[in-house]
């Protein structure tokens, strides 16, 4: 195998695939990147078997072939190369020689045949969605994925598509985030739970463009195609909670506030809430909203916020972090918080520029 490419192209394609390379050394071959040259293009693949990324660039292929080279070393080396052409030639599948400028680097890799094959795509049910929309959905709700190892199914995001809508839902058992978008034409019904790691990789390697990404969902795998990139991920297997049941429908007391000032107030309260599980108190009545926090023996803080509210007087407590994350994800100038009682879930929805986010937060016991 022998190819000629540029430092810029090579380092980009290596960086894309590197994210999927295993950090554990259980299977040594997985610490490599699979490099394949054929038909005027170079394909670089990284995987830890849970997740895989395959990126393709065009390159001058002098002699087709393949190899598997140590991912971290290769990435570190290529980054230091001077701009310009890079020549990569491989003998016997494992002996690589890289030339850049006046530098010659010899690397010993692994037999490409030992590298696990990238799963072949069975084009089953699919969703087409502009990459910018997919990224927005992930950004709007990835933060409330559960960290609890014992509730496996909550460590991912539910992706659900039907002929009219596409939605993504995450919950950690204390709060729930949902984003809903209109479906593109011809969308098929799908439902799967995407692991948090895959969401992370998607945000890292997709760029916000109008170009549609295609998501193929099989029984246990998600396959995303976007231009010259392909990503696969194992799906989480299990029953995601019925999110619709959790979203309150009868919260009648509407509180409307400007988002930015409310975020500022919560940020000011947070230092004094930190020692008490981030608990901030909301005292809401017709006069407005009073937010306060206190830590025994340290101090307390309170601040009033202008709101529109006509419901009964109520005292609630929230985890300030949950509120802040939801408010930041809303992406609207104003927020509507719908309340029922002090101990029942609150529903946050954006006002003005609605991009489909819905946030349910369970209060704390004050």
């Amino acid at each position, binding site marked *: 195998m022998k190819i000629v490419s540029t430092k810029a192209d090579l380092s980009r394609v290596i960086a894309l695939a590197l994210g999927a390379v295993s950090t554990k050394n259980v299977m040594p071959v997985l610490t490599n990147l699979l490099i394949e040259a054929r038909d005027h293009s170079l394909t670089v693949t990284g995987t830890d078997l849970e997740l895989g990324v395959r990126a393709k660039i065009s390159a001058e292929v002098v002699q087709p072939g393949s190899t598997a080279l140590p991912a971290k070393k290769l990435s570190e080396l290529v980054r230091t190369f001077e701009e310009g052409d890079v020549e990569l030639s491989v003998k016997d599948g494992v002996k690589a020689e890289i030339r850049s400028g006046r530098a010659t680097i010899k690397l010993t890799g692994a037999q490409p045949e030992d590298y696990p094959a990238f799963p072949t795509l069975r084009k089953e049910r699919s969703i087409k969605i502009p990459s910018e929309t997919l990224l927005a959905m992930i950004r709007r709700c990835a933060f409330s994925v559960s960290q609890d190892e014992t509730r496996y199914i909550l460590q991912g995001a539910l992706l659900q598509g039907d002929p009219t809508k596409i939605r993504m839902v995450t919950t950690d058992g*204390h709060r729930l985030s949902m984003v809903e978008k209109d479906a593109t034409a011809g969308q098929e019904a799908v439902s799967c739970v995407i692991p948090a790691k895959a969401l992370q990789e998607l945000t890292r390697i997709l760029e916000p463009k109008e170009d549609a990404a295609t998501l193929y969902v099989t029984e246990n795998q998600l396959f995303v195609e976007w231009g010259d990139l392909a990503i696969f991920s194992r799906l989480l297997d299990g029953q995601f909670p019925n999110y619709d049941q959790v979203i309150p429908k009868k919260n009648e007391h509407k509180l409307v506030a400007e988002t930015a000032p409310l975020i500022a107030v919560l940020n000011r309260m947070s230092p004094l809430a930190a020692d008490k599980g981030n608990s901030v108190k909301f005292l809401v009545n017709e006069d407005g909203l009073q937010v306060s926090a206190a830590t025994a023996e340290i101090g307390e803080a309170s601040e009033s916020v202008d709101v529109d509210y006509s419901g009964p007087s109520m005292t609630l407590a929230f985890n300030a972090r949950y509120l802040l994350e939801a408010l930041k994800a809303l992406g609207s100038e104003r927020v509507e918080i719908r309340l029922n009682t002090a101990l029942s879930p609150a529903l946050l929805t954006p006002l003005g520029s609605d991009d489909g986010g819905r946030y349910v937060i369970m209060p704390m016991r004050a």
Partner: protein
Amino acid sequence: MPTIRLLDPAVSDRIAAGEVVERPSSVVKELVENALDAGASTVGVEVERAGRSLIRVSDDGSGMAREDLELSVLRHATSKIASAEDLERLGTFGFRGEALPSIASVCELTITTHAEGDESGWRLGVDGGRTLGTAPAARARGTTVEARGLFRHTPARLKFLKSDATESGRMLAELSRMALARPDVGFTLVLDGRTALEAPRGEGAQARLARLWGGTLAAAALPVDHSEAGVRVHGWVAPPALARGARTGQWLYVHGRLVEHRQLGFHLSQAYGSLLPHGRHPVAALFIEVPSGEVDVNVHPAKREVRFLREAQVLDCLRHGVERALGAARLFVGTRMAEPAPGWPPAREAAPAGEASRETSRPPWAGPVRSPQGPAEFQAGGGAGAWAEAELLRGLGWGARPPGARAEESPEAAAAREDWPVFLAQLHRSYLLCQDSQGLVVVDQHAAHERVLYERQLVALRRGAPASQKLLLPQRLELAQEQVERLEATREAWEALGLEMENVGKGMFFVTAIPELLKSVPMEALVGDLADGRPTGQPASGEAAEDLRREVAARMACRAAVKAGDALSWEDAGRILADLSACAIPWSCPHGRPPLVRVTLAELERSFQRR
């Protein structure tokens, strides 16, 4: 012809003897108890061939008149009680009237006795249960009982005897335990002509303890004396560093009678709580006194088991007494086990003896190394009952302890706080090197700070419930019926800490809110622990919730404490040391690891071969 018939007395006696006279040491126990009941001030035991040939117990007690002597070998003949009511207020070891006839049925028994006031003494012989007759005999006041050819008539039992060494060891252990309870009485044990135990009468409790436990252990033993709710517990407990791998070091007495009682043993361990790593057992000698009529010793023929009318109070008293003794003491983890005194432990308790000798046989150049109790072996032991926290909480008025029972410090402990280690330098950004009057003290900075913060958090938790997060998705748990009952019994306590659970019946619970700080703890495990509570089944109010409270406090403390690797200024280190000295329990971090380890000057001197 009827197939059911009354057994021949010789047969029924032998059956009964099976329960009382299990092995030679039971003969010693029964006969020595008789001697003590007769008011003896010295008791001599002579044994040949581990009791197979001869067991002779002589006393200087009241002796028996001829009629009494002849009655004594008859079943249910006793001088100790007269009516059923007397059973309720036993002041003697014996009362069943079974011991002598039982022994007599399995050996050749000779009793020689001389009662005060009688002109002469008398000798009675019994062989395999058959009385051989009474004859005058010369003897000073008192009684001598000789049992020869033990189990000769019951070969099956004979077969089950262990080696002579084992059986002799058992007799020594038995007599040692009895001797501890009666320092006013002199005891001797002669095994095949060799004196195995010689404890002069009236030598005082502390001296008796030193004789039986060995000087080192006795010197380290912490005195216990605690009364509550009409129950008194007194005696000694050994510091945690001297704990053993088996329960053999637990001598528990009720009204001076050695007993076996699982709950007492369990509560003893509970009192040590986080001070003991998993698998280590406390060493203790504790005497329990309850109002007469509140204990039933008539449970088992050998009277090893007892039942208490108010078991919970007895257990609480034991636990609190031990906690108090431990809390008042200065519990450094040494880097080396103290040297065992000669003669301790008794010959047959091979395991601890082996351990100790291994320790002391370490060559001097082997260097100051960790003892078996060193940090490496300390695991988060006994999560169920860290006594230290219980102590602290009770001190704050949380527990079941009556007011005013807060541990007062012993003068020694108070002095120990005066001699608190002084900071010298930080080692590898992880340990604080300090000195006190006895040598070098190494402080684990994280464990020490953790303890400081932990005690503060416990105080804070008393003032207000921690923040609690309502769950959007309630978590379903399935529990066994007995777990459900225990959970419900303590509902108030765990609800006060921010745990909310809805009982929907059939063992199903929905967790609807959890303490914020325990968010990442698996609920099944947490609730399971709460539901399992203490094996007593009847946790005192608030006891089960202590676990939860401790868990919350420990998490808060661990998160906030300085870590290994943090550089500390001189002032920081001094502050941590000072705060640690003010802790109720500075001797253990919340997970049972010791924050302080000491290398004594003596050990240093040995290492440098200065002596």
